[in-house]
C-alpha cells in the first residue's frame, strides 16, 4: 500500500529558488498584493537588478512603474 503524503506547508519546490524569485508584479518596496497596485505597476524588478543599482528597486522596472504613474522606491 502506498501512502500519499500531503504537504500543507513549506516550499513546494526547492527552497533555494527563493534566492532568485520571479520579478515583482505589483507595488514597490513592501511587495503589494497582486490585486492592489498590480494593475498599474511592474515596480522594483528582481533582487539582482536592485542590488546592481545599489537600491531596493531595479531601474528598468522603476522606469516602467513611474511611466504608469505608480512611482517607485529608491
Amino acid at each position, binding site marked *: 500500500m502506498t501512502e500519499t503524503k500531503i504537504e500543507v*506547508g513549506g516550499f513546494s519546490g526547492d527552497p533555494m529558488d527563493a534566492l532568485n524569485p520571479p520579478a515583482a508584479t505589483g*507595488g514597490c*518596496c*513592501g511587495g*503589494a498584493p497582486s490585486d492592489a497596485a498590480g494593475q498599474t505597476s511592474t515596480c522594483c524588478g528582481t533582487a539582482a537588478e536592485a542590488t546592481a543599482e545599489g537600491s531596493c528597486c531595479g531601474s528598468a522596472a522603476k522606469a516602467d512603474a513611474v511611466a*504608469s504613474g505608480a512611482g517607485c522606491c529608491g
Partner: protein
Amino acid sequence: MAPASGSALVADPDVRWMTSVITRLAADDFAGRRIGTAGGRVAAEYLADRLRALGAQASFDRFGVPTAVREVYATPRLALSGSGPLTFRRDFCEHLASADAPAMRSGPIVAIDAANADGAWVVDSAWSAERVSAAADAGAIGVLVPRGTDSAGWMPKMIVGPTPGPLPVLAVRTAIHDALARDRSVVAEAAVPLRTVDVSGANVIGVFRDGAVGATSLLLTAHFDGVGDDPDQRFPAACDNAAGVAAVMESARLLHRSLPSDVGLAVALLDGEEAGARGSANYARQVRHGTYVINLDGAAQLADAAHVEAGGPAEPLLLALDAAARQIGVRLLPRAMPSDNRRFAAAGIPAIGIGMGMPGYQTPMETPDRVDAETLDKAVRLVVATASSLVDGPIV
C-alpha cells in the same frame, strides 16, 4: 534527533497585545508615520518605549535621506468642463515627477502630438521625461497620463519617484483618461501642490542580548514608516507595516525566553522603507558578521502562501524557514519581496524577506480592522520556529 530547545513556543503569541500596538501605530496623532514627520518621530519614541518594556535596550539609529521625498501639502484639484471636480486618489492623483503647481491652471485638452499645445493640458499615453520637457517647450501648462486603481478604486500613494520635471503632471483614472483622449472639447482646470522635502529618519533598535563570540545572532526587522497622511485623508498604514512591526516585537519577546543564552537577539524597526529602504541601507552597515536577518513586511492577511525572497548566504535560513513552515502549516512561495531585506542581502548578510499580505496597500483602507488575527498568530509562530530551527536544527 533530540528535541530542540525552541521546539515549542514558551507561550502562545499574544494577539491582543499585537492588535493594541497596531491600533496605536495607526492612530491619528502618528499621521501615517511618514519619514521625517512629527508623526514618524513620535511613533519611533512609542516603539522604543515598547521595546524597553519587553526587556530590550532601545536606541535610535539616525540617518539622512539622499533621495528627496515628495509631499502633497494641499489637496490637488482637477475639474473637467461638463463633469465638474474629480476625486483625489480615486479619479486622479499626483504623478511623482510633477512640478509643484499650487495655483489653478486652466486650458483646453490636446494630444501630445498636437500642432499647438500652447496654454493646453496635454494628454499622453504614458509619462516620459523627454515628452514632458518637449510639451513645456511648446507652451503646455500640464500633462495628464493614465493610471489604474486597486480593486477598491483607490490609487495607492507613494512618495519617491523620478526627478520632478518642468510641468505639473497628474495621473488620471484610465477610463477618464481614455475619454479625454477621444473628446478634445473638454477644458481642464487643475492644481498640484506637491513639494520636494529633505528628510532624516531614525531606526529604532532593540537589543535583547548580545551573542557570544562566534555564536549565531538573529536580527528581526520590520519597517514602521508609512507614506503619511494626505492633508485631508488618513493613511493609517496598519497592514504595511504596523502588523509586521507588532509581529516582530512579539516574536522577539517569545524568543528572548526560549533561545539559548549565547545566541544574540535584536530587533530593528526600520524607518524610511517607503522612501527607498533608506533606514535599512544605513543600518546594514552596522550589522556584525554571523547575524541572520528575518524581515517581515506585511502580516495582515495571509492568502494562499507567504511570499519569500532570500539574499546573501541565506541557505541555512531558508532551510530553517522551510522546516518551520512545514511544522506550522504555512505554504511558502518564492516571490520578489522588494523590501528592507534587500539592503541587508546587498551588504552580504544572510537575509530573508517574508510577506503575509497587505490589504488596502497604501490607501486610506489600511485600517487596523483589516489585520487578520490568525495571520498575526501564524507570522509570529513562523518567525519563532524559523529562529529556533536555525539555532537548534530542525524541530522534531
